[in-house]
């Protein structure tokens, strides 16, 4: 079966004082349908750059990206990708519902039923008519996720979506996102600094090197599908987080 998305030997650098500074080094990986993967690694290792490359916001220096087996063309945006940036980026002049319907409006879709369904599914009904300044940081990220899902994308890219919320809220949002994805069955790539979050959320984790921007390891998460708050207390959870932690530390 063809992977949903395949990255083949991707290289990317940025010009700093007229000198090419490599950030992504020969990265290759696949993401399958309905698979959740996380990318972890030290700060500045290029995790967000990988997401931006997949979202076609950055051109690669070499290598290719295949989406459903077809090569992604430069500067042609793929509607099958939903993107949740690190900051919630909600428009302050639009209500929660208007923020969620923005992608529909932009793409000329008049039927907002999908947005209403998402509002219900994500428990946002109460806040539908609120403005972003009237809701909490975690709620803003939920709206941001709903907005990314409203066009029914096959792949959801999440760049540290819960970095700004406290630990307890983060665990709650992790659970909610897993519950949502059980219903929607989307593929997700999650970039996070939080190893526990990565292990809890993912089927597979890619560990990036802080030295040369390459993927140093792929770790399959043996936690199964039924994940709940107790999962975090299991021995398997602890041992897996320790493996990931060691991998990151040895390649900082």
């Amino acid at each position: 079966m063809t992977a949903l998305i395949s990255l083949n030997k991707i290289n990317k650098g940025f010009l700093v004082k007229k000198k090419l500074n490599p950030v992504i080094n020969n990265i290759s990986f696949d993401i399958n349908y309905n698979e959740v993967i996380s990318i972890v690694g030290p700060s500045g290792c290029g995790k967000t750059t990988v997401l931006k490359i997949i979202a076609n916001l950055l051109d690669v220096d070499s290598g290719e990206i295949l989406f459903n087996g077809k090569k992604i063309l430069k500067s042609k945006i793929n509607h099958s990708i939903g993107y949740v940036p690190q900051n919630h980026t909600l428009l302050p002049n639009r209500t929660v519902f208007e923020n969620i319907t923005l992608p529909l409006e932009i793409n000329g879709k008049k039927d907002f039923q999908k947005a209403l369904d998402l509002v219900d599914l994500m428990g946002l009904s109460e806040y539908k008519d609120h403005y972003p300044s009237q809701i909490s940081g975690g709620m803003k990220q939920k709206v941001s996720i709903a907005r990314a899902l409203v066009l029914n994308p096959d792949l959801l890219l999440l760049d540290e979506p819960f970095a700004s919320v406290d630990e307890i809220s983060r665990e709650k949002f992790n659970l909610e996102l897993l519950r949502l994805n059980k219903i929607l069955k989307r593929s997700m790539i999650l970039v996070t600094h939080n190893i526990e979050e990565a292990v809890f959320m993912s089927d597979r984790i890619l560990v990036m090197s802080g030295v040369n921007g390459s993927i140093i390891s792929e770790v399959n998460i043996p936690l199964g599908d039924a994940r709940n708050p107790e999962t975090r207390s299991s021995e398997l959870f602890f041992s897996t987080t320790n493996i990931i932690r060691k991998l990151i530390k040895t390649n900082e």
Partner: protein
Amino acid sequence: MSKFKQIALSLFLVFFVILCWQVAENVINTNRLANNETGLEAFIPSPITILHTYGESGSLIITQSMYTFSKAMIGFGVGVVFAIFMAFVFLLFPFLRKVALPILFGVNSFPIVGLAPAIILAFGQGSSFSIIFISALICYFPTLITLDTAFNNIDKDILDLMRVMNASRWQIVRYIRLPQSLPYLFLAMKLAIPGSIIGATMGEWLGARNGIGQIITISLYQLKPGLLYASLFLIIVASLLGIIIVEILERYFVKWKHLN
């Protein structure tokens, strides 16, 4: 602090300053007259004298100020509309922005006090056009620069997100740049309102047959400080009124900025 308390406190402060002014004026005036010196009233009128002037010459001040304020408002409208138009032109043609903006900054640094006589010379003394032109010029630059900065100061993450949503350039303007720059436009308008009245007054002051600028000139030459101060206070009140109107409009059009 509630809005009502804020306003009440501001009004109390104004009243307190006026009261201090009146008391100080009375004390200094009495001392000067006792020493056979010219009373302070001849140079700086007391608040009561200014009030008397409104009673005596109220109709003259109001009639003349209408000339000034009407020209100032036309100048304000022209300046703001033209600034909005130019900000859009710069948005559509970034190359033009790069070339023209430094030149506009240069023109803006030219002192209006020096430029105003040149405009009056060019368009004729007492011409309404020259007064409106000066007024519009004062409003134009701050509005253009503020709006241009707002248009180009959008969070990069939001622009990235719009690209992922496949938004066109026009959609980015409609959904992002325009609504997010509205608070800045209203701020620029609040700054431009006093500027437009100052511009019109300056234009009249330099050579017009009507207007509050003309009254200021007359009161200076005829040594009528009461008339001078009464005119100045009317300018302040008119500016404040204009700012309040813009504030009301802002609360209507940018209500999301004023949520609790």
